């Protein structure tokens, strides 16, 4: 059943090309022209006529055989197509899995980077991360995405967002080392008067007041202890 006949190829092989001048030299004044499509149509018509004639002649047994052969060919074709689709699906799933792992990995690195953002030596290598992200995105773009395009698109967006976060987050820590200022420096910074006076009514409202027992005894005792230690 798998036998096929390439009619155009057979025509090409069995015909010869002759120049018009040569034909004239041989004394031909006119030629009958039959184009390739007309030939194919003629063949189709001839085959159809023969098959119809033969089908009317074939017995029950041949008819069953032809039906079985047709069914089996159909089943083979379906299986082949299905297998191809499964392979494709498997490929897509592997890709999604890899992208998801990359996304998780980036998320972890981002969290780690945020956690250690105050530490001068961060383990985060922003260039490496960017290249991983870029590679993943390039891979995703070059592969066919018709079957699971939405999923891959979603993961791409997620990776893009992560890459952007990583780039923003790591920029500061990798480019400049932030040292915690000393307490004296902080006191100096925050003791400066406010840049602008904020509108408020705090002066007009009495804050809740209370009175508590004296602390004279505590003071006397503490001063006594201080004297002892002197």
């Amino acid at each position, binding site marked *: 059943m798998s036998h096929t006949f390439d009619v155009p190829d057979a025509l090409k092989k069995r015909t010869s090309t002759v120049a018009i001048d040569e034909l004239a030299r041989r004394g031909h004044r006119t030629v009958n022209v039959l184009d390739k499509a007309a030939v194919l149509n003629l063949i189709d018509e001839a085959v159809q006529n023969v098959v119809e004639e033969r089908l009317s002649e074939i017995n029950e047994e041949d008819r069953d055989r032809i039906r079985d052969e047709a069914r089996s060919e159909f089943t083979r074709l379906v299986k082949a197509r299905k297998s191809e689709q499964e392979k494709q699906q498997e490929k897509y799933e592997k890709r999604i899995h890899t992208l998801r792992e990359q996304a998780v990995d980036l998320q972890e690195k981002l969290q780690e980077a945020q956690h250690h953002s105050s530490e001068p030596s961060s383990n985060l290598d922003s260039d490496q991360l960017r290249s991983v992200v870029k590679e993943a995105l390039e891979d995703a773009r070059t592969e066919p995405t018709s079957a699971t395009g939405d999923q891959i698109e979603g993961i791409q967006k997620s990776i893009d967002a992560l890459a952007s976060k990583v780039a923003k987050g790591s920029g500061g820590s990798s480019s400049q080392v932030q040292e915690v200022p000393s307490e004296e420096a902080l006191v100096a910074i925050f003791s400066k008067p406010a840049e602008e006076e904020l509108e408020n009514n705090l002066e007009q409202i009495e*804050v809740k007041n209370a009175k508590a027992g004296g602390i004279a005894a505590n003071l006397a005792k503490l001063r006594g*202890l201080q004297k002892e230690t002197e």
Partner: protein
Amino acid sequence: MGDYADYARDNFDSNGPAANVDKDQKKEVVFGVEEANALNAVNYPVKDSTDVPATTPVNTASDSSNAAVAQGRGLDVGTANLVSSFQDSTGNVNLKIQRNAFIDIDCDDYTRNMLTRLGVQYVVVNNRMVVVGDPAFELANIFNRNTRRPMKDGMISPDETDALPIERMLLETLLGQPKQQGENCYFSVPAEPIDAEMNVVYHQGVFGGLLKGLGYDPKPLVEGHAVVFSELAEDDFTGIGISCGGGMFNVCVSYKSIPALSFSTTRGGDWIDRNVAHVLGISSSRACGLKEKGIDLANPQGREEEAVEIYYRNLISYTLKNIKERFESSSSMPSFPEPVSIVCAGGTSMIGGFTEVFQQEFEKIQFPLDIKEIRLAEDPLYSVSKGCLVAALSESV
């Protein structure tokens, strides 16, 4: 505390717990007549108001301007409350208390006038009206929102960009100008936490700077040590002081006023609020109101009170286990010749039955020191501020 507790109780009884509260709700607040009436019921004192007669101040102290003031100030910089203190000529300690919380609402002339008439403090920051102190809690409950907090886990909050200008103004209101430039002001700071990686340098530097900007000579004092100064004079400042705050529990073991061991744990009243809010489906501010309405931990009534009791017990147990572990692993622990006292202070210790539950949880562990007694501070809410004041005055001539 009383004003808010009364209000919270009324509000909670009438409105009940809010189910399915969105954690990040940020509704725009519209200040209407109902809200105004609710706030008016609290009777906040108004100074120099010409529009309405001044209402009677709550617990008004004698006018500080007429009393001779000893040199030196104390300041408790707490996650939940800011408390300043000074000593007047009669030897009494005068305190000013402010809730360390705020809430932002729409800014317009009507609200501006109404708040001032009601005696509610506000600051305008970035074109938003920021209500500060206790009224912020009331508004938060009315609108079922959470208050914004300048401090978190015992330190200046990195999440609140508006915190610094507001803290600056609150400190100015609480302390006023120094009697003379460079007057001592001891302010409380948390000890290094043992259950979190946090650095107190920034927090200490910020408040030191703000106080210096007001003209004071700022001096930090570890919270637990302040409790020792305030509450353990009779024991020669020897024993264990615990400050049970909103963001942290601070512990100090002291021998004759010298701190032998100080540390903090990062669970406090806010931790209870968050957990109670979570299990009851209400906002943290409302959970705080529930906690402060007058619950007795030794005899909780109903589901809400039981939730509070469960988390209190857990917090106390957690703190005691940490203290025990730290004592056992520390090489600098003194060996006391006699049993010592444990004194608990801070707003979180003020709930009914606190000492009983503390005692019960204490008995469950093998504590490595001989303890004479476990007691509450004389004035738990003011204890840290008073301790800071003792330290400040002990340096003045």
